[in-house]
């Protein structure tokens, strides 16, 4: 088939499976790291804002492959021997957390101030105001850009190839090295990435339009 054996194509798809695993890791980790970051970015305490914005700017100013390497070598000098998946997952967590934190900060701030004031008038405590009044509204605003960023996460897991993580990019590279059919191999890989990313792009746009209509 296409000049490749069934095993070779299966091997490429095996890489695609790990791309999805790493994307999910990045999204879950990014949420765990990004949510407190978003809160710290919009906190009242100055030091919280300074530290969190410094962190975000650092991560956003460094290429993801370099973050991958820093985490990879950082873990190994701690004397730990971990699979590339852990290093790549941690790097994706840092990366996704920094961007998701920024996105969600914007969503929290997009909720009108009068909502805070109204909640205060109803004698809700501060955590109550946030959880019951602000968060549900911020979540609605957050859905389109978050889905849009998922596309970035999936695409950027491909950078894990620099620390030899076995993902779709890596498996495609290996098959290309052994068959030297670059157009076939990388077109298949691109189509798989496209099949994962394009529906999410479309969904993000649809959510966006729905939000603007209401």
């Amino acid at each position, binding site marked *: 088939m296409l000049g490749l054996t069934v095993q070779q194509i299966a091997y490429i798809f095996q890489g695609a499976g790990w791309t999805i695993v790493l994307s999910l890791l990045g999204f879950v980790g990014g949420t765990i790291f990004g949510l407190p970051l978003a809160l710290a970015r919009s906190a009242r305490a100055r030091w919280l804002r300074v530290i969190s914005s410094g962190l975000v700017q*650092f991560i956003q*100013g*460094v*290429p*993801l*492959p*370099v*973050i991958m*390497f*820093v985490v*990879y*070598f*950082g873990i*190994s*000098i*701690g*004397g730990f021997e971990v699979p590339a998946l852990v290093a790549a997952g941690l790097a994706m967590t840092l990366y996704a957390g920094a961007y998701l934190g920024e996105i969600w900060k914007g969503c929290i701030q997009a909720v009108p101030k009068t909502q805070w004031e109204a909640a205060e008038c109803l004698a809700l405590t501060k955590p109550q105001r946030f959880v019951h009044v602000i968060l549900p509204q911020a979540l609605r605003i957050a859905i389109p850009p978050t889905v849009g960023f998922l*596309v970035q996460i999936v*695409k*950027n897991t*491909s*950078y894990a*190839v*620099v620390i030899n993580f076995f993902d779709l*990019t890596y498996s*495609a*590279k290996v098959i*290309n090295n052994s068959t*030297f*059919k*670059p*157009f076939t191999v*990388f*077109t298949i*890989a*691109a189509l798989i*990435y*496209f099949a994962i*990313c*394009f529906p999410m*792009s479309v969904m993000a746009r649809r959510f966006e339009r729905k939000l603007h209509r209401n």
Partner: protein
Amino acid sequence: MYEFDFSFLSDYLPDLINGVWLTIGMTVASILPGFLLGTVVAVARLRGGPWAQRIATIYVEAIRNTPLIIQVFWLFFGLASLQVHVGSFAAAVIALVINVGAYTAEIMRAGFQTIPRGQLEAASCLSLSPFQSLVYIEVPQAVERVYPALVSQFVLMMLATSIMSQISAEELTGVAYMIQSFTFRGFEVYLVIAVLYLGLASLLRVVLLGIAEVSFPRRRRLRTPL
């Protein structure tokens, strides 16, 4: 306890400087062609015939929904398999231009859509041809409106040059890999590289914003921030 050792810095300084220059070179070489390609594609999507629109849309969606590194491999190894030999620098720049063009197209499309109709009507009243109206009226205004987004996009592109070492272009990340394989100081090397990228990103941002100061005199006179 792990002891940090940054002594590699003095030994490999010339390599690091070469890496920085190559990263800057790739970035600078890609910005203008990428911007032009993006603008042409944006115009094709907004004003082109049905076929031009379709092709432009396919291009933008195909690029935006696949990773840069796959595009680079496709181009670099693909050209090699056709016996077309391009250097890794040229391949990197071509891939970057094609990649950033798709993102720029979306940004510029948004920019064109913010231009008030009155501007286009005024242009046609002055009997400017559609092309003149585009070049002298629409593009400058669209660029002015979306300039911050363009700057962010080009900074992201500069950061993305870091994977070009995968096709053996010895930019900053490639140099880092070489140094760590000699010194076994991976963590320190990449920390230094991270700081260098941070510096380059800030530098690029400042330079691009400086260019905006000079080229948008209306903004300067009105003192409106970008």
